[in-house]
């Protein structure tokens, strides 16, 4: 392939470079060749006559006007082979685990989306053992769903739990802006669970360039998609997509794009969507499920906001608990009608009562809670939190459903909960006989 080298660099920015060149393709891969012979990758992102703008994989720092640019005549690709299982790669697709570079097939990244008619309607529940997920916001194969949490919450632990406790054929971890200890943690958990041989990691840490961080989801998803096309059930974990969006913002700003909200580019939604939409249950092949992390302080911030509009719900983690309000699985209704007959009803009733209880919490601030029913609601809320909202308490779905009945029976009369007489007859615990709930010390 014809490779052209140019040296007329016009300008160098934080992660952007422009140069005069001819016959260059949009999105073509290029090499920056430093005077000392070192090389780094870059990609064409805009062309205006002979002015070509490139995104620099290793940032603009250290790039000088006497660097040369060589256009490689190919788009960005990523290796794909079964031998990649168990290995760790960086955001430019190079192994970073000390192992040998593999000779693999190369596959395109950020390819077009699958024809919707090739998608199946998701219909298979993924059991996680987390009551707030299994009972209230059931996870479904091929779902795309992030954890919304403040930085510092144990979201990576939950991510690792779900990935290792479930039945994925292939796990692909895409780490964007990972701290070293987070990277180490994932690695350790995967090894402990004996899942190493079915896991591939693409890792970008804070010391790598942001453009490499931007690449990570595309690499992880391209490889994941290939496995899915081979019939595998693939889990892709992406942590942290807020970092990713911030990198996107930095690059957009470097290109002088007009920002839409809080400096983020107007295409943030489309950019996130083209990644998350890779999740699919494919007719005649396997599936790709995406679990992400979106760190946030405020749900109306552009990153969680745009994410929520794209993903099929979110798990909202706060103070170490999985919250009911703020969490949502949009696919739950595809599966929770075939688990156990009481599942849907108990789910709604528990939620309704909890929302009533939240009203009482507000009322407490005015000192206006004085009646017995309100007090019972408040106690119910406490027990709900303690018994159900801990994401690290493992309970089978059926046990968790029984626990819900126990909690209802402890605080309410049958006619107060608004469940059908039929269900009450089958499931309401006998006086004081709880299946799961431990009796109060004072009971």
């Amino acid at each position, binding site marked *: 392939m014809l490779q052209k080298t140019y040296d007329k660099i016009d300008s160098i920015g934080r992660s952007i470079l422009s140069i005069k060149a001819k016959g260059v393709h*949009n999105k073509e891969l290029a090499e920056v060749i430093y005077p000392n012979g070192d090389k780094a990758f870059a990609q064409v992102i805009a062309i205006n006559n002979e002015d070509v703008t490139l995104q620099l994989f290793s940032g603009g720092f250290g790039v000088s006007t006497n660097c040369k640019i060589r256009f490689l005549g190919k788009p960005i690709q990523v290796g794909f082979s079964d031998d990649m299982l168990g290995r760790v790669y960086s955001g430019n697709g190079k192994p970073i685990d000390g192992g040998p570079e593999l000779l693999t097939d190369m596959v395109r990244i950020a390819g077009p989306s699958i024809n919707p008619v090739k998608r199946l309607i998701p219909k298979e529940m993924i059991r996680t053992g987390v009551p707030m997920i299994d009972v209230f916001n059931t996870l479904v194969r091929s779902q795309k769903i992030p954890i919304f949490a403040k930085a510092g919450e144990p979201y990576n632990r939950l991510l690792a739990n779900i990935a290792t406790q479930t039945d994925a054929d292939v796990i692909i971890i895409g780490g964007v802006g990972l701290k070293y200890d987070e990277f180490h943690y994932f690695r350790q958990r995967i090894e402990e669970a004996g899942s190493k041989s079915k896991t591939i990691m693409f890792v970008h840490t804070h010391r790598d360039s942001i453009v490499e961080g931007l690449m990570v989801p595309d690499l992880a998803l391209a490889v994941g998609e290939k496995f899915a096309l081979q019939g595998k059930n693939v889990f892709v974990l992406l942590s942290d997509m807020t970092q990713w969006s911030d990198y996107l913002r930095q690059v957009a700003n470097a290109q002088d794009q007009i920002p839409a909200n809080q400096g983020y580019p*107007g295409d943030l*939604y489309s950019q996130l969507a083209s990644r998350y939409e890779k999740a699919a249950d494919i007719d005649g092949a396997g599936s790709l499920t995406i679990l992400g992390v979106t760190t946030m302080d405020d749900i*109306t911030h*552009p990153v969680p906001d745009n994410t929520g509009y794209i993903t099929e719900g979110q798990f909202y983690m706060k103070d170490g608990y999985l919250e009911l309000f703020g969490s949502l699985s949009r696919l739950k209704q595809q599966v929770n009608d075939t688990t156990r007959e009481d599942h849907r009803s108990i789910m709604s009733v528990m939620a309704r009562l909890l929302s009533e209880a939240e009203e009482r919490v*507000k009322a407490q601030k005015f000192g206006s809670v004085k*009646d017995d029913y309100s007090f019972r609601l408040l106690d119910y809320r406490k027990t709900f939190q303690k018994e159900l909202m801990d994401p690290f308490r493992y309970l089978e779905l059926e046990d968790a459903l029984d626990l819900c009945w126990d909690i209802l029976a402890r605080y309410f009369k049958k*006619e107060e909960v608004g469940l*059908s007489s039929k269900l009450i007859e089958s499931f309401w615990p006998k006086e004081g006989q709880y299946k799961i709930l431990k009796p109060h010390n004072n009971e």
Partner: protein
Amino acid sequence: MDKQQAIGKVVSVNESLVGVITTQGAVMNGEVAYIVIEDGKRLKSEVIDVKAGQFVYLQVFEDTSWMKAGDLVEFSGLLLTVKLGPGILGSVTDGLQNPLYELAKKEWFLERGLEVEPLDNKTKWHFTPTANKGEFVTGGDVLGAVPEKIFKHKIFVPFSLQGVFELIEIAPEGDYTIDETIAKIKDKTGAVQELTMAFEWPVKMAMPFYQRSVPDKPMPTGIRILDALFPIAYGGTACNPGPFGAGKTVLQHSLAKYSQADIVIIAACGERAGEAVEVFKDFPKLLDPRTGKSLMDRTYIVGNTSSMPVAAREASVYLATTVGEYYRKQGLNVLILADSTSRWAQALRETSGRKEEIPGPEAFPMYISTLISAFYDRAGVEILKDGSSGSLSIIGTVSPAGGNFDEPVTQATLLSTGAFWGLSRALSDARKYPAIDRIDSNSKYPSLLKKEEVAYLLELLRDGKSIASNILLMGEKGITDETYIRYQKAELLDAVFLQQNSFDEVDGVSNPNRLRIMCDMILKIIDAPLNLKGKDKIRSHFNFVRQAFLDWNYMKIDDANFDEQHSKLLNLIKQRAHVTEDL
């Protein structure tokens, strides 16, 4: 149209915006152009700006990777059009009318440069002529009809033909494909044109109304809170803005299933592919109670979902609208559901930003409100030439950033639509679906209920809300029993009438008849005197009523228990009306 087609070459590429210098021929704003890239693939695009010095901006409907300066551009001389004729119903296309099932026969992925025939040109349709040879006809006149799924599809003289033509030949009754000539017409100069059963219409051009009328007849949607309190009329417009997860899409899907429209067109614009899949894989299995046929038979889906090329979002919305106008001309009641119009607006924002236009609020282009109002203006009631009428209603979702309605797209939409269904996070968190704000929503269309009834119910809801805030401040003990009863009534109205479980076959839809029965019961409960003392007893009474009412909601109207439950409810109300002592 016989001008020499223009040719040009690419000079700049910035995502979907491509700058071109024309080297030959004249260029029309809005015309379709193809960019021929290195591997010979032809990428469809549209002229969106013609500038000085032969410079033209194209927005490309495909991924622009591997394009380079100097690539050949071939202009078509034709505006972006939709092909109209029998065969649209039941199909699923992308935003440029490529049928997705046909594309899937070629590739699993939506590879670029693929185009397939928009309408099936193999199927033979049974044509019965109604016009006669020798008659004089003009654009929009009916030549005959073919049966299509659930109705008789009129075959028109193409709407774009103006002036008078002599019908010099018309095909006899028989089976024809949409490409076969079924008529020949001659204009004044003697020039002859052959007509088929299909023709094209530019998507961005609103079809002129033959005669426009006012939307004043409520369209039953099966959704109680809408039909009762915030109705939409045939030919009307409505919007349902709301934060993510509040229930916009579920609401739209319910509307698609249960609305009493003849034709439903779903524009899945820039949202999840999976949601469109649910519709086109489930609808064929569902029966439309009005026709007894598959629900898909009255449905057409345009899917340009969030990961498909952004520039085609706009086309997808207009495509849906044009098809809607066409079926309105057939004398049918058409409903367009667009989810979400914000994604279309965002696509415009992306392009506008790349063109470095002066941005308005939140970087949306200044002209966004003009485009939005022009879009909703394509809805309406039309009186047709033969005196019959058709209608096109448009219901668009809006996805405001941060769920804040104070943003340009929501605001422009509010000004352009006749009904506003604001979805609220507070209600969806409390699982009070549909989470349509009971106080802030509104509609200018007539309800299925009486005007006084609507006012009466709305007043109760407002009272309920203000009592709720008093309870919050002062506790239940701070208000009188009487006030507490009023509060419980408002809560009950909400719980058993306004709330509706979309995922339940029975509760998910209430036809006008059932709505009436339920409303009568609600009014009885509200009006019944209640002789109870003490908050606990009052609450407990309403718990029983709520339970009985909900059980009733889940019964089919022809269910043996339906009437029994009705009496049970009445008894519950009567029991408490006069007894002072607790039972």
